């Protein structure tokens, strides 16, 4: 029997970070419900930001969806996590910077700050009884020792899944797979693969991460996303089907892609 892989769709979050892709709330609801229908395990529907798109679309998705887990993305910031929890999604995804370039150079903080923020954020989400997936932002450039330490700590705080985000898209399959194996050898958290396609390796990297023990694979329709995009859902399901079952039929992904095509505006005409 083939192993099961859970597909996490992030078209409505990371896909929308593709410059020029802007989805209206009603479009988000429509696409999310389609993704729910075809059997996607989790749908990341956006970044909680009241000023940007309000909160109604999330409650509409939550009330109408049949089976998918609905998640929203939050920074590693207690206030943001609190706001995200208030929206009552199934999952709040908290993105924690783990590379030195992100922690020191971008945020001007340090590793102790990351750990402290994580503890605070987890206390809030635990109080709300909301499941958390923890994202290791920029994992492909981070110190493995720090990631293991953080994963062990996160597990103790109640995190069940850690997302390894290849934020700048520089992983090759072997390096990506080794990271999964290394973290799994130190703690029991499930691993979620989040790949970017800067060197055209998002599908291969995700597949290798699955082969080395990742249980969740992040994808987007048409592979849209920041810069050169993310792991293309149709291509990934096609590539993995000899070894894994995702519960998603490829032809049904095409239906979602048709819907997305309608949502992308004329500037994307030759885009897909």
């Amino acid at each position: 029997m083939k192993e099961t892989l859970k597909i996490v769709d992030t078209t409505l979050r990371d896909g929308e970070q593709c410059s020029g892709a802007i989805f209206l709330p009603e479009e988000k609801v429509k696409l999310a419900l389609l993704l729910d229908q075809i059997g996607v395990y989790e749908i990341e529907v956006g970044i909680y930001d009241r000023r940007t798109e309000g909160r109604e679309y999330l409650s509409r998705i939550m009330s109408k969806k049949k089976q998918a887990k609905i998640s929203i993305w939050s920074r590693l910031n207690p206030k943001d996590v609190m706001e995200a929890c208030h929206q009552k999604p199934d999952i709040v995804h908290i993105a924690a910077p783990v590379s030195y370039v992100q922690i020191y150079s971008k945020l001007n903080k340090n590793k102790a700050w990351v750990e402290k923020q994580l503890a605070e954020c987890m206390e809030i989400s635990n109080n709300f009884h909301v499941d958390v997936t923890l994202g290791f932002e920029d994992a492909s450039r981070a110190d493995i020792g720090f990631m293991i330490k953080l994963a062990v700590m996160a597990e103790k705080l109640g995190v069940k899944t850690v997302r390894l985000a290849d934020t700048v898209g520089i992983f090759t399959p072997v390096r990506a797979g080794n990271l999964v194996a290394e973290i799994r050898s130190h703690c029991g958290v499930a691993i979620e693969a989040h790949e970017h396609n800067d060197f055209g390796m998002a599908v291969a990297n995700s597949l290798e991460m699955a082969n080395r023990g990742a249980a969740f694979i992040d994808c987007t329709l048409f592979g849209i996303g920041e810069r050169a995009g993310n792991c293309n859902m149709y291509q990934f399901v096609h590539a993995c089907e000899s070894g894994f079952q995702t519960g998603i039929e490829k032809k049904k992904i095409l239906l979602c892609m048709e819907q997305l095509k309608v949502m992308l505006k004329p500037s994307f005409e030759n885009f897909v």
Partner: protein
Amino acid sequence: MIRIIDATLSRLDDYNLTRDEIYCFIELMGEIGVKDIQLSVNVYYTMDGELPEGFHYYLEVDTSAYIKGIYPEKDENIKLYFTPKQCKNDKEVPYYQINSLEDNTRYELPDNRKLMKVIGLDNLILGGCVAGMEALKKKFCFERLILCPENTYHCATAIASLFLQYKGYAVLTSMMGIGEYAATEQLIMSLHVMDRYMVSRSFRGFLDLREWLENVLGGTISPIAPVLGRKIFYVESGVHVDGILKKPTNYEPYEPELVGLQREVTLGKHSGRNSIRYKIEKLKPGSIALERIDEILEDVKSMCRITGEAVSEDDFIKIIERYERNERNT
């Protein structure tokens, strides 16, 4: 030694390339450091054998041309001939289409110093990279293998990269993976960033190669195509704009200028205060609208909510000018 043989020209026989187009392409490949070029017999004859100097040429001879002998058998410009499953002399390298390693076929040559070319193996790493490479190792000697992985499962570039890490003799790729191959530009940039391959070289030539491809193929390359896409360094998200403006390496795998592209901050519903400030300073330096950033940001977001599209620079200038007028009137 890393050897990348670009096969783009040999995959474009249906496009009736002109001499000038072929010449231009080869020169552009030289600019990005690719000196090994595979030609088809058709391309060779279009050039009448007059090929730009400074390159190694490999001629792909199909079965029909090989049997009939319709190819330039003794041209000194041709380093190797890729010939179908057989070789009559030292310059001929037999090629095999192999779709799976699971059968018991053996691919041994009488002379164990000779090279061999394998096309296919698109499923090589589906069950894991190490398992795939070990299986390949059992059947072939990597030091004498030229591998041309195909892209049915969208893993060709990764396979090519892996094969080079395992010290394979050479990989065969094509620009944008034309012909369902690994993509030359993706492989080069991955090696450049991760393994410091051709560390001091500029790859601005990719810009001209993109134009060449668009002219020949008659279309526009996807704006988010890896390395070549026009918009891969456009950024809208507030959090990321902030990070990029502080230090571009926060969110970029390499400098856009390296491949002839530019970083661009666009305005959309995820924009933040820093994006607005950056854009005003770029489009209207010193504008008094800088004092109304929060309100302008709200206008940008609500405009996006209504139109479902990004705010163009023209529209943004109109917004700034409206605020400037209001400021002056008050």
